[in-house]
């Protein structure tokens, strides 16, 4: 009688002047009460009957051959129930590339990343693991695993790794050159990406002003407060259940299937609450280890990382070396640009240089350009995605050079950007045309914001104030999402989704369903279901959940309405084809006073034909690129070089802000991570050894380091997706670094082109520029 349909989304937002009933409001999130009372269950909160504790044994060397592993003393330790090494894992030598949903890795390298075999290529790489009846016994036993290493030469810096003669980290790694061919001789350069447009030399020749600069950024960590965790139970029938805090439990299931060489149908992954991810909780680390420990012990095993393990054993963001050259004519048109970008991938290939190469110059209409990007391996932790992966480093270079161009041309830096800003139909660096974008609207909002024109405090000779701006782009993700809706007789709806909620996305999804069905957001109960219970969902990453999973919710709501109409028709004693729906009510087209509320229809499903399951599936939407631009005021202590952020305004195009408070939170959080990246955060290495693997020595911004972050949400509807919504999570980390560097310059007259902008760097630059007399 009713057929499940999946109507298409045309993405038409409401006409101007009309407003939504639910969208744009700020309901309390459904999982909020659990989270403020400590009841929410994160991965490390799992407790299973008979559970053992697992502990990984990690390499103290950044590069060494493993000569021998003796586990006999660990096995003999009281309480120990399992000990595994690389020999317990299937040997994988496939160079098939595993797409994780956000980031990718070759299978052979993924396998070595979770457990080394013949050699170690970064400090912290797992070499063995133990499980014991107590945490203490597991830690003791881990110390009893004896590994004999033969240290090898360490390649710490990416530029050094590219030198001809540099020690090879992998003797089976050959550079993939533009066009896809592989080089003949092994190298530490995994990939060379290239984009060209027009004639870049002719473009520079035609420019009135050309600026070329070098930039360096340090390796930084996502800094999620919850360490990686996993609990695994290998059942006697060969089925595996894993509980973990992950951005993508379906991706975890696939990675486990590949790494353990078992069918996905035998693996069930339970998505626990996630204590921050920012791209770093896609790759599996502990999950396969806990699984094999559990198989050997015949008992469930739980493990979690220490903070030092998180720093050395998981994936930070690439450190980079970028050379940026841009040329403009006197009238402020950028006519040529060139980027040479080296991204440090750490121990295995897979840096986000590809995204950096595209996002760097795409915000601007540039007729002649050339981009060369290199993915380079070193003896450091293998990088993972970090919020807008690859983009902040590129933006640091491009947005600083644009600031210099503006100064050379005597133009306002926002005006220069506006004059060159891309719009719908302009092509990104890789040739794809932009769909509808709001870059110009964002820049106009910056130009017109009171903050941009507000007077700065006067310096007094010991401190100086400066204001900087910068912009940033994220292309936006789509991917695959599935949601189901089921209906309760009390008029509530179960929204069964499979996109792990890292920041409150449940409420945004429920709001879309509520908007469409004419319900209160709290009539819709969202659940993030496990891999056995809901259809496939890609990872929560790339700013895709509200956009793509939100579209799936929109479609599921349309499917629900289509299925509920015949039920309403029965209750109204009318023809199903004559039923209309709107504002939570069904009515008969020609007799509008014959109407019934959706809740009443739900209450009578049993007698009108039984339960209904509605579904929404998204396979691929057009990307919805999103832009932001930030204004920042800094105070620089001229005697110490310390930089303080005194005022901050973030402007961003959200397409349509479903839950404005959630959008503001993303903008504020991203800006603050960018402040950390700019001013404080860096991995300090010495011969491949990380010297600062604690939050004391690797400093995240605290509440004292940032001001209130003002936000301006611009709404230029995206071409695809419901209501014109765009992803918002990634963009706000792209502009801050350059905005702060530009502000420091405006305050002091010195350009800092190496991150982080520490007091020492500022002080040295001031001294070199003949600054305060005590400097130098």
């Amino acid at each position, binding site marked *: 009688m009713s057929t499940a349909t999946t109507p298409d989304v045309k993405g038409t937002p409401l006409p101007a002047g009309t407003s939504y009933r639910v969208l744009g409001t*700020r309901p309390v999130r459904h999982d909020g009460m659990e989270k403020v009372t400590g009841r929410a269950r994160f991965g490390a909160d799992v407790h299973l009957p008979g559970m053992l504790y697992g502990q990984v044994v990690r390499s103290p060397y950044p590069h060494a051959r493993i000569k021998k592993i003796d586990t006999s003393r660990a096995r003999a330790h009281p309480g120990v129930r399992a000990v595994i090494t690389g020999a317990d894992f299937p040997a994988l030598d496939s160079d098939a590339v595993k797409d994780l949903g956000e980031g990718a890795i070759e299978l052979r390298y993924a396998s070595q990343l979770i457990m080394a075999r013949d050699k170690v290529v970064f400090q912290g790489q797992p070499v063995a693991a133990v499980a014991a009846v107590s945490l203490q016994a597991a830690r003791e036993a881990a110390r009893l695993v004896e590994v004999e290493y033969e240290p090898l030469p360490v390649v710490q810096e990416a530029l050094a790794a590219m030198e001809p003669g540099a020690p090879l980290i992998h003797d089976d790694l050959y550079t993939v050159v533009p066009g896809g061919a592989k080089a003949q001789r092994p190298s530490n350069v995994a990939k060379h990406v290239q984009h060209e447009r027009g004639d870049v030399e002719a473009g520079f020749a035609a420019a009135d002003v050309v600026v070329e600069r070098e930039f360096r950024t340090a390796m930084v960590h996502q800094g999620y407060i919850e360490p990686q965790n996993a609990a695994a139970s290998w059942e006697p029938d060969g089925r595996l259940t894993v509980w973990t805090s992950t951005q993508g439990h379906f991706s975890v299931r696939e990675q486990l299937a590949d790494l353990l060489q078992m069918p996905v149908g035998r693996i069930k992954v339970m998505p626990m*609450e996630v204590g921050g991810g920012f791209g770093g909780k896609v790759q599996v680390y502990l999950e396969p280890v806990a699984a094999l420990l559990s198989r050997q012990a015949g008992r469930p095993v739980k493990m979690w990382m220490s*903070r030092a393990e998180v720093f050395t054993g998981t994936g930070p963001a690439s450190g980079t070396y970028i050379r940026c050259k841009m040329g403009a004519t006197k009238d402020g048109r950028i006519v040529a640009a060139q980027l040479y970008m080296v991204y440090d991938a750490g121990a295995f290939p897979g840096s986000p240089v590809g995204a950096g190469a595209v996002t760097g110059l795409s915000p601007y209409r540039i007729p002649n350009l050339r981009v060369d990007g290199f993915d380079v391996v070193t003896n450091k932790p293998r990088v993972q995605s970090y919020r807008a992966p690859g983009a902040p480093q590129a933006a640091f270079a491009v947005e600083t050079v644009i600031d210099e161009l503006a100064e050379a041309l005597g133009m306002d830096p926002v005006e220069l950007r506006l004059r060159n800003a891309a719009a719908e139909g302009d092509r990104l660096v890789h040739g794809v045309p932009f769909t509808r974008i709001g870059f110009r609207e964002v820049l106009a909002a910056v130009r017109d914001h009171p903050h941009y024109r507000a007077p700065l405090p006067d310096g007094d000779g010991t401190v100086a104030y400066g204001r900087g701006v910068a912009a940033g782009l994220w292309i936006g993700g789509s991917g695959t999402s599935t949601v189901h809706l089921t209906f309760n007789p009390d008029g509530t709806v179960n929204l069964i989704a499979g996109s792990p909620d890292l920041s409150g996305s449940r409420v945004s999804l429920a709001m879309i369903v509520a908007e469409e069905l004419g319900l209160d957001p709290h009539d819709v109960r969202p659940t993030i279901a496990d891999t056995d219970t809901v259809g496939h969902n890609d990872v929560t990453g790339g700013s895709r959940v509200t956009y793509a999973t939100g579209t799936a919710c929109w479609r599921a709501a349309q499917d629900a309405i289509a299925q509920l109409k015949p039920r309403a028709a029965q209750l109204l004693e009318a023809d199903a084809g004559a039923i209309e729906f709107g504002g939570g009510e069904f009515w008969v087209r020609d007799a509008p006073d014959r109407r019934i509320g959706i809740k009443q229809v739900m209450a009578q499903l049993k007698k009108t034909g039984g339960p209904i399951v509605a579904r929404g599936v998204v396979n691929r939407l057009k990307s919805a690129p999103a832009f932001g631009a930030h204004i920042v005021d800094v105070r620089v202590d001229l005697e110490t070089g310390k930089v303080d952020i005194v005022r901050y305004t973030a402007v961003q195009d959200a397409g349509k802000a479903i839950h404005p408070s959630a959008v503001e939170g993303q903008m504020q959080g991203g800006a603050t991570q960018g402040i950390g990246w700019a001013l404080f955060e860096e991995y300090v290495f010495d011969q491949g050894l990380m010297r600062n693997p604690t939050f004391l020595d690797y400093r995240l911004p605290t509440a004292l380091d*940032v001001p209130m972050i003002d936000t301006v949400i611009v709404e230029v509807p995206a071409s695809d997706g419901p209501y014109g919504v765009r992803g918002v999570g990634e963009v706000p980390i792209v502009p801050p670094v350059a905005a702060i560097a530009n502000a420091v310059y405006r305050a002091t007259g010195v350009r800092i082109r190496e991150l982080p902008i520490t007091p020492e760097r500022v002080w040295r630059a001031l001294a070199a520029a003949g600054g305060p007399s005590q400097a130098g």
Partner: protein
Amino acid sequence: MTAEATAPQASMAAERPKMANPKIMVEATINGVAETFVCEPRQTLLEVLREQLGLTGTKEGCGNGNCGACCVLLDGRPVNSCLVLAVEADGRDIVTIEGLDRDGVHPLQQAFLEHGALQCGICTPGFLMSAKALLDANPRPTEHEVRRWLAGNLCRCTGYDKIIRAVLDAAQRLAAGAADGQAARHAHGQPGGQPATEVGLA
């Protein structure tokens, strides 16, 4: 206080060298209830709360006192429970997030919900316990005082803005409640400078 608490156990271990992991019985008041547990001297309060007592609302973020996710109140003072040995809890009063408001929802919790002062939620229990200690000590803090007091709690998601606003708002509600002589938790003031929450939690 560490020395007082650990010295007897150290001597016990010395007297009984053959017993690999001597355990100590500890009596403490946890969230208003008298509890007795047995632990090894080397176990942290955090580990015992989470792995033995099932109080998993207290979170481990770093294990070395730098992030504040494991903040609990020990005799009313905020401490990082990863830096407290479980045996030190003997005879003491401990309040965890599960006991922040034993009658319902604390105004701080309500303010965090309404201001959207959490995203992933892993740091939230630590922030709430620190903020509780702040408002107990200083019921009307300035923005700077809130920032200073909460500087030992790391949040990576929010940028702190909404957390600071929530704490300031809760302080106002508590003060208003105290002034009115009635429970502030039922008050629904407008969050400072922002639209009011339009749909409350059922």
